[in-house]
């Protein structure tokens, strides 16, 4: 048996390439940028790094982004990990940090002065006062609305939530849904929960809730759901939203049957040109005027696993990657925003609006990134149930709370 194994081994060893030695050692990068354009952008940056550091042997391993979400566990648990890898900020990395799987890179933050240049995303990678990653990209969420429909119905950008609800009623009277939403895959509903909760209770309360420290039957959450119920009662949401994916729910927006969509900036790129021209963006209006306006801004990071083999080279690459011009290049391809204040301002008007808004806000990631996947799955289903049956609010909250206490305890 052993001989057979050896035979097969040596047979396939023939096909392997034997690398010559590099004086500066090795650098292994695990990337999830698998779509064609981002992959090219990543390869360009790696090539630039290689040119600047010819003595380092750089290896870039790209894994398909959905598969990467499972592969990350193998990467982190292996004896020898890559030196740099991509991931997501916030609670999606918090568990790994708590388990000691991410290396502390506070020293790179200090030496590169990122505390100033990347202050808006700094909290999302800071745990117990130390930084465990470098953000390289994020994008805004907000209300994308049709100017022409707003004008035709005599309504303007709402300054408060009450105005927002009034707009809903006016549009509804004219047979137009104020808000397009497709909740078939649940997460779009969580966007609404995030924003109403952020506006009702503030960012700190929201984060505690996401971390399982607050009960879903708490008065604050009840108020959030009551505010949400007001929007449902005002007829804001389009009918039958549970039957559509987020993408299918674009149709009413394009056809003029719905006036706005609370969604991430990724919606813009695939709308028809005529719709894009009519489209504009505003920040979700305040509910409690005393609350700071927290935002959802899903952030992508690069980090060094605790099992990295070439720590120095890894840190060198992180510092290189986070140079403003590299982040600009990457984010131009992704259609997202660079978290570095030194990056060139985006030319796209939606990105410009987003960058301006986020530079002044503290950010959460998004419901399904801020809380655990298990919790998110259960809660998002119940949120859609709530949107269909707002009158059973308390039972639904109790059910979510049951899940929370099962998952987080306490």
């Amino acid at each position: 048996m052993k001989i057979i194994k050896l035979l097969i081994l040596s047979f396939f060893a023939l096909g392997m390439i034997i690398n010559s030695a590099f004086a500066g050692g090795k650098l292994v990068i695990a990337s999830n940028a698998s779509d064609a354009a981002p992959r090219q952008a990543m390869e360009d940056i790696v090539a630039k790094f290689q040119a600047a550091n010819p003595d380092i042997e750089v290896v870039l391993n790209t894994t398909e982004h959905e598969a990467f979400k499972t592969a990350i566990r193998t990467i982190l648990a292996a004896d020898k990990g890559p030196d740099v890898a991509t991931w997501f900020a916030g609670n999606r990395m918090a568990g790994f940090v708590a388990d000691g799987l991410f290396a502390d890179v506070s020293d790179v933050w200090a030496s590169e002065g990122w505390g100033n240049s990347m202050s808006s995303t700094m909290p999302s990678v800071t745990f117990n006062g130390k930084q465990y990653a470098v953000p390289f990209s994020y994008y805004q969420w907000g209300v994308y609305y049709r100017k022409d429909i707003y004008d035709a119905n005599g309504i303007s950008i709402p300054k408060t939530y009450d105005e927002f609800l009034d707009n809903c009623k006016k549009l509804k009277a004219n047979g137009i849904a104020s808000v397009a939403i497709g909740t078939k895959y649940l997460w779009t509903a969580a966007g609404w929960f995030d924003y109403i909760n952020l506006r009702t209770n503030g960012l700190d309360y929201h984060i505690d809730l996401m971390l399982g420290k607050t009960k879903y039957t708490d008065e604050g959450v009840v108020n959030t759901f009551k505010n949400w119920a007001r929007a449902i009662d005002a007829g804001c949401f389009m009918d039958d939203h549970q039957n559509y994916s987020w993408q299918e729910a674009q149709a009413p927006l394009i056809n003029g049957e719905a006036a706005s969509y609370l969604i991430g900036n990724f919606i813009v790129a695939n709308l028809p040109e005529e719709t894009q021209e009519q489209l504009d963006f505003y920040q979700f209006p305040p509910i409690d005027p005393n609350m700071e306006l927290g935002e959802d801004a899903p952030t992508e990071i690069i980090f060094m696993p605790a099992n990295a083999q070439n720590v120095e080279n890894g840190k060198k690459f992180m510092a290189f990657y986070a140079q403003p011009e590299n982040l600009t290049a990457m984010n131009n391809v992704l259609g997202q925003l660079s978290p570095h204040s030194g990056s060139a301002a985006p030319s796209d008007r939606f990105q410009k609006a987003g960058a301006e808004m986020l530079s002044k806000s503290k950010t959460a990631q998004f419901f399904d990134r801020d809380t655990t996947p298990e919790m998110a799955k259960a809660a998002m289903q119940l949120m859609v149930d709530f949107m269909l049956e707002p009158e059973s609010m308390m039972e639904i909250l109790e059910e979510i709370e049951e899940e929370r206490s099962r998952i987080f305890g306490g």
Partner: protein
Amino acid sequence: MFPVPIEKATKTNRVIYYSSVALVLLLWLIPLMIITLAAFKTADQLNAGGRGFVLPDPFTLTAFKRTLTNEPFMASILNSFMVVIPVTVISISLATMAGYALSKFRFRGMIIIFAIFVGGNFIPYQVLMIPVLRLTQDIGIWNTKYAIILFHGAFQAGFCVFFMRNFISQIPNELLESARVDGATEFEIFYKIVLPLVRPAMAALAVLIFSFVWNDFFWSLILSPISPSGMLAPAGLATIIKGRFYNEYNVMAVGSILVALPPVVLFFLLQKQFISGLTMGATKG
């Protein structure tokens, strides 16, 4: 009760028969028709709600252009061919030889060996996921095409051996004996007598194995890298063409059609042999 040819049935029965065939066929083809329509639509039309039985407006070949120029996706189709063809060759050639030995020679352990081949078919393959993954990692072929080729080659052999053994056992022994009397070596008997006779069965198997392995998503996901360079076509369809947030349904439709084509083409090429191979193999079990 034996089936009576439909031509001999009463007129009412024939009408019922033909109309229900047409109805089932139509139902069966509805998704295919929708996909084909979508392939000729613009993304804007699909996004604006122009799905289902709506004619393309405007009619466009953009989706075809975008799919055919999508290098990683086209590479994944090529990858699939480079895996599926060796697998088909390996499993069928091994199975023909094994089937011949198991049906025409008596030797110790024959039943056991045959039982192992047949028994392999009854193991739910999900159970094998982790052992096979570890095995390929241990011998250092995980993440390469060899892992999928060897695994499928071995695993499909079970069904193929079962199929070929039953088929070869129908060849009259007298045929082989007379060849032996005429002085043919055992290899010549296999090559000159058995092989030509089992060709229909091999063609049928080739179609089956080709489409099994071509459509396999599970093992390509586990054994081959989902890294863009090594992906197979079904994984390519699910990951290259499908976006992170936004799906270009027209491009996905074209991709689905392209991925579905090779087994269909092969089936039509080998259709004659396929049908006769299936029925001949079935008469004696």
